[in-house]
């Protein structure tokens, strides 16, 4: 059992989830309620990581973040190490390929809130912040929660992008999914089996938890 890889994966998944939470809420609300030019294009671009082969996405990210690009050079001048093959690089890649998993369920959840309910809140004199805290998030939270669970589980299991951008450096960018692959390459089926079972368990727990809180008849605050 590669504890370092498991811990790295859990850190990456948690960080991705935390960073995407506000971004997803912001983008989900925006896409749910605003009409603007190019909205369809934005939605299509957001969905792109869903259909793009992970290695392709990883390749472009690797090129975009590498030392030869302005982004890569700028990052290196700022932090003294390159963005690719680092945890930070993994996080950036992870944020990008997880965007649709975060934004889409949240967008659906915000779309499901009746427009009059939000208008009623404005008529009550609520500030934007109070509206978000007291009305929008409580009503959309099953969607927000399932988005977070999806992001978490998806990050734990991501292989292609992580390998391309991170290179699978032990203790630095080798996540548990890559560790499993390495174990299998080394004919250590037992080791791969234990780690796979661990991932399976974590994923089942996450999905189970989200079903428990969002499914009808489960624990739901507005019942």
């Amino acid at each position, binding site marked *: 059992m590669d504890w370092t890889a498991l811990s790295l994966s859990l850190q990456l998944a948690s960080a991705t989830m935390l960073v995407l939470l506000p971004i997803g809420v912001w983008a989900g609300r925006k896409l749910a309620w605003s009409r603007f030019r190019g909205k369809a294009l934005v939605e299509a671009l957001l969905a792109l990581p869903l259909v793009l082969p992970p290695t392709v996405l990883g390749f472009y990210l690797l090129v975009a973040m590498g030392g030869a690009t302005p982004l890569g050079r700028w990052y290196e001048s700022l932090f003294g190490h390159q963005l690719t093959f680092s945890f930070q690089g993994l996080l950036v890649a992870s944020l990008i390929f997880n965007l649709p998993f975060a934004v889409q369920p949240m967008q659906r959840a915000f779309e499901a809130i*009746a427009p*009059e*309910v939000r*208008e*009623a*809140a*404005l*008529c*009550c*004199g*609520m*500030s934007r912040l109070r509206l978000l805290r*007291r*009305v929008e998030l*409580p*009503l959309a939270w099953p969607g927000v929660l399932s988005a977070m669970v999806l992001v978490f589980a998806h990050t734990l299991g991501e292989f292609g992008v992580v390998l391309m951008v991170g290179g699978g450096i032990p203790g630095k960018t080798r996540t548990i999914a890559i560790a499993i692959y390495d174990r299998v390459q080394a004919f250590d089926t037992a080791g791969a089996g234990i780690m796979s079972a661990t991932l399976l368990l974590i994923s089942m727990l996450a999905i189970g938890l989200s079903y428990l809180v969002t499914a009808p008849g489960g624990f739901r*605050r*507005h*019942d």
Partner: protein
Amino acid sequence: MTDPVTGLRATIRQVVPIPLDADLSCGPGEVLALVGPSGSGKSTLLRCIAGLHTPMEGRIECDGRTWFDAGSGANLSTARRRIGMVFQHYALFPHLSALENVLEGMDDPDGAGSRERGRELLRKVHLDGLEMRKPHQLSGGQQQRVAVARALAREPHALLLDEPFSAVDRSTREKLYGELAELRRELKMPVILVTHDLEEAVMLADRVSILSRGKTLQTGPPLQVMERPATVEVARLVGLRNVFEGRVLSHHRDRGTTVVEWNGRRLDVRLQEGFPAGARVAWSLPASGVLLMPRDRNAGGILDNIVEGTVGKMVTLGNRVRVPVRVHGATEALLTTTVPRHLAESYALAEGKTLSLRLRGGQIHLMPPDDGPHGPAGDSRSIA
């Protein structure tokens, strides 16, 4: 009428997305009903006042404060207009209890005494004991009461009611009418009620404003608007079926009558000198002003006009019968009257039967002939 400083005043004009051309005023404690068929723009007008829709042109003022002025660009946000709004489907916060819904309507929901005030408001709308219920655990009528309490929680400067009775059954509606009538005696702010139901407006409002295609056609006390519509379009909208065209012959101040030529005969009507002799006019008569001729033929009063006609296809509406009568004359005009069922039976009314009618001239109201820009009067849908 509205004092220049207090109350609500709105002038709203726009061309798209739906045309609006409205002038309204509503004094403190007054209930103004905006009445019109669906699609007449009445809800959009209310949304303009609430700041949920921004019109192209106009000005909205309340209690001396400008909420919107297209000229200067002033446009206060909904949250800052201090309105109480009751939505057609109430728009309660589904995840909050009745009490919490009311609390969210207050400026300081967490403040000291807020909960007590919330309970008091719910008591006022007869919901004591149901404070902790979620909206889906309440009946339609109870949800409407929560919405009213929430709207009042802000101590609004204007109360806006958007078809608040349309989503409940008839018996609940009757009960809610009574409650609103009772509640409104305590209300000090202008109340604007949007409804498509003229009867409801007559019951609840001090004044009604008749709307069609976004335009306020006539505003006044309900009975005045119904019995003395300003135009043929308003007459049609308030459900007057007997609207015809004629010509003024003469005025007789001594007798208090105006003589109108209609369908080859002379009608004595209430003196209305606004139209010169010789002028073409439209005239209307409520169904209540068309009476069956008593068997004693000499009983007609001074302003009674006796006409003969043939009964058309009758429609029974509960214990009343609607009787169309094709009046004999040059143009075969169709008059409509409503009589109690027992009377229809005792007169043995039947299709094809010839009948004498009294048209009560005192109730005949003259209007300009309908050749305005709105097309034939038959276009307007009735709201009555």
